[in-house]
């Protein structure tokens, strides 16, 4: 049973969801709802179990490489289809399979009204999604990572466009895929660059590429800057950063559990994972790190401002995700890879919780997503209410909820990078608290503002939906305790220690404990103030909010979509249309047709010479004689 022991058992982690995908996908017309849900969730449960096993068996030190077969091997270029098990990947495995499992369970109830074949399709996609994500985090080299990377893009495309009869939804799906592909192109070029310089794409060869004590570096600093920058551009596509973030809010078109899956456990964290995975390269490229930090903090701020004035419950959460991802990139850019990974984890807990909670609300409201038409749901949805509250507190970053620890780590690293980053990040954190509690109070506080029909229909969701909520709520509370700051308990930051084989502990500048305490106190205090402000403003919702131009600007998301539409999409469309209807027929084909036409025209003209006029014939004859004689007598000498 060598297969079923560590580490070979890890093969099963991606294979199980793949199996679920195949069974549900191919037999979806022959299975009952129950069977489909059981298979879909069952494989996830198994995968989670195995992930736990793997997690606890990870040997410290060198990563475990599992090579399945040669994917591409040409001469010295070797790209094996291999998996890498180490602290980083095993942590992500846990997050993905764990939260994935909960989302599967939740979905089994949420999607129950779909017909069996669509239900099967949904679970198949979900499983495929998880499979791709597992491939992404388990891949032992950039190419396998890229396979998962694009696979995730595909699955998000399929799931966002799950309700394919709605054209707008399938357009949102297209947008997600295409924007991802823009990033993917940069990623690909980075891979080629890496191959060109080092001849290898394996993560284990990265130290060698940068150069270790005994060896000279294969990559020059220009190479490293270029590669890391391109990889980062790839990450902006996948992880929804400026300028490629606009697909993520539109991705709300998919079923709500899918949003939870995309935003919390999979997909958007891929960029963070990839950069954390390449931390050796990034550390060697300080310029790119600064760029990342700038982009990250800018995205965080931009998305947070937009979230202030969104009225769709899922849109608010979506922009909050973009904003939180900005935080993570800020952490990466500050060199605090562990903090970023930490935030990925805690964010996975509370964002999944929030999305599933919003799903529960939407479920209860019969599909209504506009928070202005909600309110007072506390009584009818008690479990949802309490878990949602926990999620909001966690994301706002109140001690001792998980968000506090990770956000604190990020703010600290930002402070170390530059106080300007810290100030902006802190401001964004305030905004975060504000819009989350605006959302919370509008949804659950006050009195009900929906229709009478909806009021009758209000109900708490079934157990399959509430249990995941509760589990996630607990995780949102305790999840941060793995990373207690060093200033409180020595050795409290167990995450840093755990990840140290992959992400070397930097012996960066230390700051005094006092400063650290001040920073913590500052952020917590301001956040609390911000929540109070939100409570004051939204405890009783007034139908008309003041419509300042700035508010409208925010409501319309700074018109970024419109800008892209006008600056990129429309010109491309116009260009395509022009080429198709003008250039192609008139110029490209016209040149060819023109040759044909001119031959025809010339033959028409030459035909006129043959006009039947004997006089003309005689004339030509004479000219011919003259020419022949001239040639004969004068030219041949």
């Amino acid at each position, binding site marked *: 049973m060598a297969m079923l022991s560590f580490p070979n058992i890890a093969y099963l982690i991606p294979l199980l969801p793949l199996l679920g995908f195949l069974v549900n996908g191919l037999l979806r017309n022959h299975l009952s709802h129950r069977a489909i849900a059981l298979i879909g969730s069952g494989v996830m449960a198994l995968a989670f179990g195995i992930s736990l096993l793997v997690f606890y068996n990870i040997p410290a030190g060198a990563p475990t490489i599992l090579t399945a077969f040669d994917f591409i091997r040409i001469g010295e270029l070797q790209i094996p289809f291999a998996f890498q098990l180490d602290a980083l990947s095993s942590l992500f495995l846990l997050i993905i399979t764990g939260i994935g499992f909960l989302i599967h369970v939740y979905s089994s109830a949420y999607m129950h009204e779909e017909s069996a074949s669509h239900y099967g399709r949904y679970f198949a996609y979900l499983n495929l999604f998880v499979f791709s994500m597992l491939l992404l985090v388990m891949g032992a080299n950039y190419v396998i990572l890229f396979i998962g990377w694009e696979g995730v893009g595909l699955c998000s495309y399929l799931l966002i466009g799950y309700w394919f009869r709605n054209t707008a939804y399938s357009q949102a799906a297209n947008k997600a895929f295409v924007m991802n592909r823009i990033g993917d192109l940069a990623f690909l070029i980075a891979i080629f660059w890496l191959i060109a310089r080092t001849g290898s794409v394996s993560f284990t060869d990265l130290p060698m590429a940068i150069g270790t004590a005994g060896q000279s570096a294969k990559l020059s600093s220009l190479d490293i800057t270029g590669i890391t920058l391109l990889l980062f551009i790839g990450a902006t596509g996948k992880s929804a950063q400026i300028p490629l973030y606009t697909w993520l809010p539109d991705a709300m078109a998919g079923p709500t559990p899918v949003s939870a899956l995309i935003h919390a456990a999979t997909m958007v964290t891929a960029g963070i994972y990839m950069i954390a995975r390449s931390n050796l390269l990034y550390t060697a490229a300080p310029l790119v790190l600064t760029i990342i930090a700038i982009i990250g903090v800018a995205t965080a701020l931009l998305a947070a401002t937009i979230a202030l004035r969104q009225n769709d419950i899922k849109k608010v959460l979506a922009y909050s995700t973009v904003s939180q991802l900005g935080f993570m990139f800020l952490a990466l850019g500050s060199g605090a890879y562990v903090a970023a990974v930490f935030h990925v984890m805690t964010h996975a807990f509370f964002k999944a919780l929030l999305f599933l909670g919003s799903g529960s609300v939407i479920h209860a409201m019969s599909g209504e997503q506009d928070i202005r038409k909600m309110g007072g749901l506390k009584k009818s949805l008690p479990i949802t209410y309490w878990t949602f509250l926990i999620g909001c507190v966690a994301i706002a970053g109140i001690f001792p909820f998980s968000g506090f620890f990770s956000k604190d780590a990020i703010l600290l690293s930002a402070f170390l990078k530059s106080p300007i980053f810290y100030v902006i990040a802190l401001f964004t954190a305030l905004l975060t608290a504000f819009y989350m509690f605006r959302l919370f109070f509008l949804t659950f506080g006050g009195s009900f503002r929906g229709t009478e029909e909806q009021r009758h229909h209000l109900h708490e969701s079934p157990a399959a939906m509430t249990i995941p909520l509760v589990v996630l709520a607990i995780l949102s509370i305790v999840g941060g305790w793995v990373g207690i700051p060093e200033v409180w308990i020595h050795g409290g930051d167990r995450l840093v220690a755990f990840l140290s084989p992959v992400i070397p502990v930097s012996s960066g500048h230390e700051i005094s404990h006092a400063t650290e305490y001040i920073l913590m106190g500052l952020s917590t205090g301001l956040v609390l103030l911000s929540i109070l402000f939100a409570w004051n403003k939204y405890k009783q919702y007034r139908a008309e909010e003041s419509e300042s131009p700035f508010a409208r600007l925010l409501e319309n998301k700074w018109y970024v979509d419109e800008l892209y539409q006008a600056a990129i999409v429309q010109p491309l469309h116009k260009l395509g249309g022009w080429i198709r209807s003008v250039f192609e027929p008139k110029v490209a084909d016209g040149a060819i047709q023109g040759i044909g036409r001119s031959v025809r025209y010339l033959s028409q003209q030459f035909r006129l010479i043959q006009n039947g006029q004997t006089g003309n014939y005689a*004339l030509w004859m004479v*000219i011919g004689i*003259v020419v022949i004689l001239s040639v004969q007598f004068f030219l041949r000498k």
Partner: protein
Amino acid sequence: MNVTPYIFWFLSVLALFSALMMVTSRNPVYSVLWLIGTFFAISGHYILLNAQFLAVVNIIVYAGAIMVLFLFVIMLMNLNRETEPQKNRWLKFIGALAGGCLLLVLVAALKDAELKSQQAMVGGGSIGLIKVLGKELFTRYVVPFEISSLLFLSAMIGAAVIGKKETSQTLNS
């Protein structure tokens, strides 16, 4: 004093002038008359070259029979200056130019020919006499001579058929 060159030049100028007038006359009847003039000039040349037989035949056959035939036809059709069709000026110009080029090319080609120094026998020699030619014609050239009679026969029949067929067609229509 030798008058031969003067006669030669006179006849040459006459021939060329008549030929030009023939080509340029608007009225076909004038053309015919000028052409007859040319033929006379050429006959004069024949006499100068002591080709008596040809000179006489030229006058009788060409200037006499053939040109009279032309004249008849023209008068029969009542062609005159007014009915004369004209080519447009460009075509005329191009035609003249082409002919001029032809002359130019031929002259240029032949002016340095090796027979430059050769002379044509003027005023003497007996080969142009009927006796000599007749002997040649009926001995060495007797077969072509007989064949040419066939040619005449067929031409005669042809002319008659063409003329007759036309009348029958006209009648039918």
